[in-house]
């Protein structure tokens, strides 16, 4: 592990920042944690609410197996201890968005125990420092509803659509020491959740949000008093909170004050945090085991099924891309940074290998390069994402195969790709119809080369006199004369041969 050297420079010397994150991740599931109600995002207010979610008299919670399964899979993905016996507790407090008057959570016996996540401060740089961040626990709990204050001049409205939605609370250890580490941790966690499929990771929709615990201390000393900034909803904001909160605390301490343990809120518009409530008026949540629910007991078959259903995870995938597929560290990191890209790439790879009757390793580099430069370039230009790419992995693989077997040159491939994007036609058809097949007919190429040399006698002289840079000119002229359809390798060889003659 590499020690972070990030320090806040105060007037009285250096301060070290200590950060822990509690991330709330909405479990991907059709139904809520304890009711059958749906969980669609953006639905009309109060249309995704069952009698249980509204806490009508006599209603009872029944755990949703799928939510538990997703949380267990998430735990497995971070190498965590899965507790075969866990229990739900009630966290009691009154608020208008909390129909039951308590949130069902897990304080005393969480579903998932200690685990870890490895982060890299620069994912695309193979030499960048990596660090292991400890995970304290993951527990599952209900989300609350939402108050809407902007619907009426004097009243607040309540939307219970989110009430009862399953959340995983993923609690890290206070292992991070810089804004960059906090950002890298959150990004990596999101990548893992998306790979596992247990959370969509859409922070802008509130599917994932972080409570940021920050304290400062003199390097090597005991932990200082921390503050908790609630509901931060982007990687960038988390980094900003750490930076802002650390320097605020340093200012307080250096002015002779004390950091107050309190809950704070982040205001992205002003980029500052402000106090929400202090420890003194913190709630007494009166946690106790929920008597409506039996302890959650998981058997080995269930755990095994969870384990079997785990996909290859980002770290393993990146190592495989580098090792088995021979991709550069940069490309491997880029392709594995999110699950959708990796899925797209692997579909492309398998299709390319199938068409070309080669191993995936043999087609990997060309596939990666095409995806990251040609396809990404085009998507950027069109303002589209991989998800809505007009060209799919199969079509891409067909195009790559045409290049690989020498049917078209790389240059022509770019033209063909443009036509594919515009028309939606497939590569073989375009090449066929537009007569773009390149020629490897040495006789035909030789004739053109000879003609080029004759028409550029002066340059031939210069070349032979030592101006070797002109080689490319002859190749270019030949290609141009053949409208790009000549096999460039053959052209190279024949030009070389003709000039040497």
């Amino acid at each position: 592990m590499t020690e972070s050297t990030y320090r806040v420079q105060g007037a009285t010397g250096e301060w070290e920042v200590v950060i822990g994150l509690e991330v709330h991740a909405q479990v991907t599931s059709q139904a809520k944690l304890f009711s059958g109600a749906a969980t669609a995002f953006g639905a009309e207010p109060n249309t995704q609410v069952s009698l249980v979610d509204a806490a009508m008299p006599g209603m009872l919670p029944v755990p949703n197996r799928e939510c538990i399964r997703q949380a267990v899979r998430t735990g497995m993905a971070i190498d965590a201890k899965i507790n075969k016996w866990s229990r739900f507790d009630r966290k009691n407090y009154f608020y208008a968005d909390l129909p039951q008057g308590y949130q069902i959570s897990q304080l005393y016996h969480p579903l998932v125990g200690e685990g870890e996540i490895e982060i890299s401060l620069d994912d695309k740089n193979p030499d960048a420092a990596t660090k292991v961040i400890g995970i304290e626990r993951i527990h599952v709990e209900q989300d609350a509803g939402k108050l809407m204050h902007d619907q009426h001049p004097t009243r607040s409205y309540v939307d219970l659509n989110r009430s009862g939605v399953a959340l995983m609370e993923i609690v890290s250890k206070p292992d991070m020491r810089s804004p960059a580490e906090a950002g890298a941790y959150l990004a990596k966690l999101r990548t893992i959740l998306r790979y596992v499929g247990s959370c969509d990771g859409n922070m802008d929709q509130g599917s994932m949000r972080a409570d940021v615990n920050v304290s400062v201390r003199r390097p090597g000393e005991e932990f200082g008093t921390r503050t908790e900034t609630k509901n931060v909803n982007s990687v960038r904001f988390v980094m900003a909170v750490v930076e802002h909160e650390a320097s605020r605390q340093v200012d307080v301490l250096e002015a002779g004050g004390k950091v107050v343990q309190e809950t704070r809120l982040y205001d992205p518009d002003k980029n500052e945090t402000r106090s929400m409530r202090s420890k003194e008026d913190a709630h007494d949540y009166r946690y106790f085991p929920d008597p409506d629910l039996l302890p959650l007991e998981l058997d080995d078959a269930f755990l095994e099924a969870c384990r079997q259903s785990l996909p290859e995870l980002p770290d393993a995938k990146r190592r495989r891309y580098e090792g088995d597929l021979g991709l550069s560290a940069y490309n491997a990191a880029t392709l594995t940074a999110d699950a959708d890209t990796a899925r797209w790439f692997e579909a492309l790879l398998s299709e390319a290998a199938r068409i070309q009757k080669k191993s995936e390793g043999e087609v990997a580099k060309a596939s990666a390069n095409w995806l990251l430069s040609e396809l990404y370039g085009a998507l950027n230009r069109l303002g589209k994402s991989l998800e809505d790419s007009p060209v799919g992995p199969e079509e891409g693989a067909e195009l790559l195969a045409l290049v690989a077997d020498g049917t078209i040159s790389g240059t022509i491939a770019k033209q063909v790709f443009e036509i594919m994007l515009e028309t939606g036609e497939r590569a073989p058809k375009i090449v066929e119809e537009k007569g773009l097949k390149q020629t490897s007919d040495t006789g035909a190429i030789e004739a053109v080369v000879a003609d080029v040399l004759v028409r550029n006698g002066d340059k031939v002289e210069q070349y032979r006199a030592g101006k070797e840079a002109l080689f490319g000119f002859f190749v270019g002229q030949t290609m141009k004369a053949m409208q790009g359809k000549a096999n460039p390798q053959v052209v190279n060889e024949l030009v070389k041969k003709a000039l040497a003659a």
Partner: protein
Amino acid sequence: MTNLTDLTVAEIRDGFRAGDFSAREVAEGFNANVAAAKALNAFIVETPEKALEAADAADKAKAAGETLGALAGVPIGMKDLFCTQGVQTTAASHMLEGFVPTYESTVSAKLWAAGAGMLGKLNLDQFAMGSSNETSYFGNVISPWRRKDGGNAALAPGGSSGGSSSAISARLCPAATGTDTGGSIRQPAAFTGISGIKPTYGRCSRWGVVAFASSLDQAGPMARTVRDNAILLETMSGFDPKDSTSLDLAVPQWEAGLSSDLKGKKVGIPKEYRPDGLNEEISAMWDRGIAWLKDAGAEVVDVSLPHTKYALATYYIIAPAEASSNLARYDGVRYGQRDLPDGAGLQDMYAATRAAGFGPEVKRRIMIGTYVLSAGFYDAYYTQAQKVRALISRDFELAFEKCDLLLTPTAPSAAFALGEKQADPLAMYLNDVFTVPASLAGLPAMAVPGGLDSAGLPIGLQIIGKALDEQTVLNASLALEERAGFNARPDKWW
């Protein structure tokens, strides 16, 4: 002609099937009794039309030769703790006054599906908290019984299922539902000379029953005979996927299994249930009960339940703790009572709503529960109570290594007069001393009448059985019932 309202559930069921009378005649008879018994205040809402509707459906089904439900032709009372679709459900509170559920509790739905009809929603102690039915927002329920001392003191029908007990003993309904958290079926049954069974925790679904203390609440039937209880319990029981604590077990045929022959059964007599100063008449009744069970062929053994003395204290920590949380949903935001003083904020609305919506006993228990769960007190009270609860369960397990069932008194006294114990909540809580231990252990327990005391009031006996062994509980109760020959009924004064 027989007075149809004097018939038991079994007699109504069989007579209706035999064509001795129509279901409509039965429903009309009970509707008339209900309408004429306002003085008892047993019902919060009367639903004569529901009773007639079910009766007509039963008559029609019978005429058409269709298969009849187990309770076809039988009208019953429904404790107003069960949510009933389209019919106001209040838990006897101002908080839920006017609340009309859009859903039907699992237990009541099963009863209606079996052909039973609803005579009305029965009064109870508010949120089932009380032992005398004096905490209802809708007024006290009056027992139909009176002391034979020439006085006219209105007596408590017991609680919390006091509307059920009063109505059954006054022949306003042949049977009713009850719920039992610490004795709320058994104590009122004992006070009014009827029987009632609290089955093993998890037998009856709690879905749609207004919650008091989730780990203790259990529905059960109340009726005049053991057989009637067996009939109703069969219909009310069964696994419900909507209740996580519901038992996923087949429902035994308890009625078919009824037998008062107790040969080979060992009856345990727990010595801790005979404290110094136990009411002599209660003690004598207990001795008679022992003799009756011996007569039925059982062997009697002495057993010890050493942690019994902690049961009441344990109960009055756990039940209020759960209640304080269960009742948090009554906040004025979504349904029921809302008090919103001018210019009030959210906190003010909560305070005003809950101050007006809850009665004093409910508030007392919410405060006790909040206190025992609060930081700094949790371990000393709640955690400790859970440990003692486990010891109490263990007491029963050990005792049941030596015997098959236990015989005890149901309540420490016969019915007391309304108002008599209201000033002292602790004296009131003592009423549950014999019923609470079985609740804490989740065991099936039944109250049966044994006879009348010197004041002419019913006193009862309690059978406690092993978990899931309702059959033995019913059978032993039947043996007592046969030997007690209890056929006293209150003189009609209402």
